[in-house]
């Protein structure tokens, strides 16, 4: 805020910023407070903003009674494997399109990007039949294979953009030294691309961590269901356990918030570069 601006403008910017923070953080903070309040406080006529007396009861329910840790494990495995495969395959594709002599490279790139616009509801039915025929229903593999393909267009696009910024002399020098294309990618390009890999890796991870429709359709037991399916099914017979739901929400959202706070700049860059894709 520079001295040029008058106090009125500074005040309105201040109010606006507070509103934005309240908008973004308020509902989650309420969820956080809810997760520490006992059911009596939650159903009281006047809601209390601060949990007093606080209780760990909901966190206990979530893990001991509802085995939430199993969903978390499934999500970590699925999102982790998805990220690794996305980065490996996406890097190969982006490298080929950016650094090697290939015809129609922009046509190929646009084809890859347009595929990412297919609505998932149009894919889920046939994929279910396919997974069923291959005996892949209720497995990690079905989810990882699906999420990988959904994540690849954005990963390839962002990595392509990053690889394009390296000078061509790099390739020639490698060629002179007798390094093959894979050597160029693995020993030179990838180590230089750590920031872009972190960015797209995070985006792929978050997308897989949050995905719901495919997980709902493909998995049927707690052995392979991911967190979103677990939370969606969090209803007791006679009432909605809002406190338990709030505790589970906090558990899955806190790691994401930590990632977002640490890698804010990377994520914003990746997203805005991927904005063409959406």
């Amino acid at each position, binding site marked *: *805020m520079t001295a040029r601006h008058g106090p009125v403008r500074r005040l309105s910017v201040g109010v606006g910023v507070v509103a934005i923070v309240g908008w973004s953080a308020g509902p989650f903070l309420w969820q956080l407070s809810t997760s520490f309040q006992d059911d009596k406080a939650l159903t009281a006529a006047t809601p209390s903003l601060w949990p007093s007396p606080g209780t760990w009861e909901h966190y206990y329910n979530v893990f001991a009674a509802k085995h939430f840790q199993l969903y978390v494990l499934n999500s970590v495995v699925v999102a982790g494997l998805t990220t690794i495969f996305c980065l490996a395959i996406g890097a190969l594709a982006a490298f080929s399109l950016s650094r090697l002599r290939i015809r129609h490279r922009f046509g190929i790139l646009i084809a890859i990007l347009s595929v990412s616009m297919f609505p998932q509801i149009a894919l889920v039915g046939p994929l279910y039949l396919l997974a069923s025929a291959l005996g892949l229903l209720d497995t990690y593999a079905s989810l990882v294979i699906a999420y990988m393909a959904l994540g690849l267009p954005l990963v390839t696009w962002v990595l392509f953009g990053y690889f394009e910024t390296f000078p061509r002399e790099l390739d020639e020098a490698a060629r002179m030294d007798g390094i093959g294309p894979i050597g160029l990618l693995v020993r030179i390009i990838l180590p230089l691309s750590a920031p872009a890999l972190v960015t797209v890796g995070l985006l792929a991870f978050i997308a897989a961590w949050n995905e719901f429709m495919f997980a709902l359709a493909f998995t049927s037991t707690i052995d392979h269901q991911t967190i979103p399916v677990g939370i969606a099914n969090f209803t007791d017979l006679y009432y909605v356990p809002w406190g338990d739901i709030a505790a589970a929400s906090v558990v899955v959202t806190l790691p994401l918030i930590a990632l977002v706070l640490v890698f804010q700049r990377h994520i914003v860059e990746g997203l805005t570069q991927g904005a063409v894709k959406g």
Partner: protein
Amino acid sequence: MPRWPDATPWLLLLPIAVSIGAVSIYPILNGIWLSFRNTSLVSQQDDFVGLLNYGLLLGDEGFWNAWRHTVVFTLVSTALETLIGLGMALLLFERFPGRGLVRAAVLVPWAMPTVVTSKMFGWLFDGQHGVVNWLLRSVGLIGANINWYGSVDHALGTIIVADVWKTAPFMALLLLAGLQTIPDSLLEAARMDGAKPWQAFIFVRLPMLWSTLLIAGLFRALDAFRVFDLVYVLTGGGPADSTETLSTLSYKTLFSTLQFGYGSTLSTAMFITEALIAAGFAMFIVRKIGQAR
């Protein structure tokens, strides 16, 4: 200089081709194929029926009901998100202490799983103990609790509010990136000429931001058109089908009634609609660029 083999680039593209081919191209084609069949996992039928399903679709009141909700949801949420996002972007562009932290906070709604957002709004807007009812009663805006997503009149509106909460900050970041590409010198010049801030906005920033707004709005609309998670978890399409959208209707037709033929007709119709909108928009953009030259 040693030559690298010509096949290498294609070999490196093989994994992505297999992956996308199996998970995107094949299912889309298979879905179109199924949309001409009466495939049902219940009755075990699986015959070619030509355009019969599409005929049924046109006369299906459930489809048009979902279509209307989807269009209303798409138009209203996209418009609100673009407007609110623009306001947020203009604020985030200003200099103020702690700006980095605020920009990170804005990512929280985007990063949160949509299922969690649904449940969170389920609690915020709960008909009995929801804090929104309590707040509105406290300030005297409503006399009695409103059963937000449990009543036919308010359910779709509640879902739109949840979506706007989640996506407006994301729009803000995209538009902020657009704002940052506008050269400072332009705004400076406008200020020198005595332009007030709102004039600088209308005459300098908005025209420069126009293409970003259009593209961000289009992608947002295409995404909103597929809304699934929010609806499925918050209302399941109810009460009395008042929030049924094309995605939830297709999903239920596929996985609850197991009519893979007719379900595929619904989802293929959605796919074609989206493809037409995207293609029309792409042509519009190409023509604009052509005129600009």
